[in-house]
């Protein structure tokens, strides 16, 4: 069985034989070499993995909290958890997918813990965007757009919020969300349908389109 190098884990031409599920596997994957070295206790190898993927994982966890301190803490949690679970990584999927799964679950857990202390997040100030014409979508500051969307999503329950966050921000498909969260695809679809309906209600209650100047 040969593992073709994926786009997110560039191969560097090194080959390593390993036994997996009773078969000899040929792996040409820098990640795999670092993973095996890390499992054996090579801290430098794990540091290389962390540095390789911390940007992507930060990007994902930024969707879960826009507080830099909390976000950094979550990123650390993900890599610490990944380190102790590294033995369970079988190399069947790219390492980044595996890390994203841990990150999504960590972020979801963070939301559920936060939900115990309910707080209403006010929508950010729309003044800057109110001046923008409908056809000038490109001129909207992406950070402002993300902050508005984040505040809207924060009004949903954790499962609804998760599904829409991954759909809207990360452009994940329902299958991908199901795999990341260990849910069934049917559950994700139902959740997404319900979440969209709730999100629409919230956006209409907040007069989102009027405030964005997108009613035309």
């Amino acid at each position, binding site marked *: 069985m040969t593992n073709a190098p994926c786009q997110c884990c560039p191969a560097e031409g090194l080959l390593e034989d390993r036994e997996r599920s009773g078969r000899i596997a040929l792996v040409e994957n820098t990640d795999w070499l670092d993973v095996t070295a890390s499992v054996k206790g090579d*801290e430098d190898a*794990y*540091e290389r993995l*962390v*540095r390789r993927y*911390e*940007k992507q994982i*930060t*990007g994902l966890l*930024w969707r879960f909290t826009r507080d*830099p301190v909390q*976000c*950094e803490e979550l*990123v*650390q949690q993900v*890599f*610490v958890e990944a*380190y*102790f679970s590294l033995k369970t990584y079988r190399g069947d999927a790219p390492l980044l997918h595996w890390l994203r799964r841990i990150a999504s679950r960590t972020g979801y857990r963070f939301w559920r813990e936060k939900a115990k202390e309910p707080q209403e997040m006010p929508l950010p100030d729309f003044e800057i965007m109110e001046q923008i014409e*409908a056809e000038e*979508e*490109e001129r*909207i*500051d*992406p*950070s402002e*757009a*993300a902050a*508005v*969307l984040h505040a*809207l999503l924060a009004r949903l329950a954790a499962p609804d919020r998760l599904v829409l966050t991954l759909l*809207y*921000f990360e*452009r994940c498909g329902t299958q991908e969300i199901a795999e990341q969260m260990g849910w069934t695809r049917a559950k994700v679809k139902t959740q997404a349908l319900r979440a*969209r309906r709730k*999100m*629409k209600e919230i*956006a*209409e209650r907040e007069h*989102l*389109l009027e405030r*964005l100047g*997108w*009613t*035309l």
Partner: protein
Amino acid sequence: MDTLEGLAKLARRARGEQTPVFDVAEMVRLRIRSESRPSVTLIPLGLFGGLSAAAASIILFLAVQFWQYMNSPIMELVAPLPEIRLW
């Protein structure tokens, strides 16, 4: 424009956001080291278990010696019984 369409449009822009960059490698290394150490609470627990086992062995040894010292262990236990007055 439909509300959901507006939200999708907003999301398209939001995806272009520059996310912060953190250098967590060193902190991760430190946390892994601190969490890798065997838990301190297990050491006194093991010590307590060891001492208990040693004490139990001594008591067992003495009990066996005492049992063997008695001429008729069962009779020694039963003999005093008839002398007990019930009233």
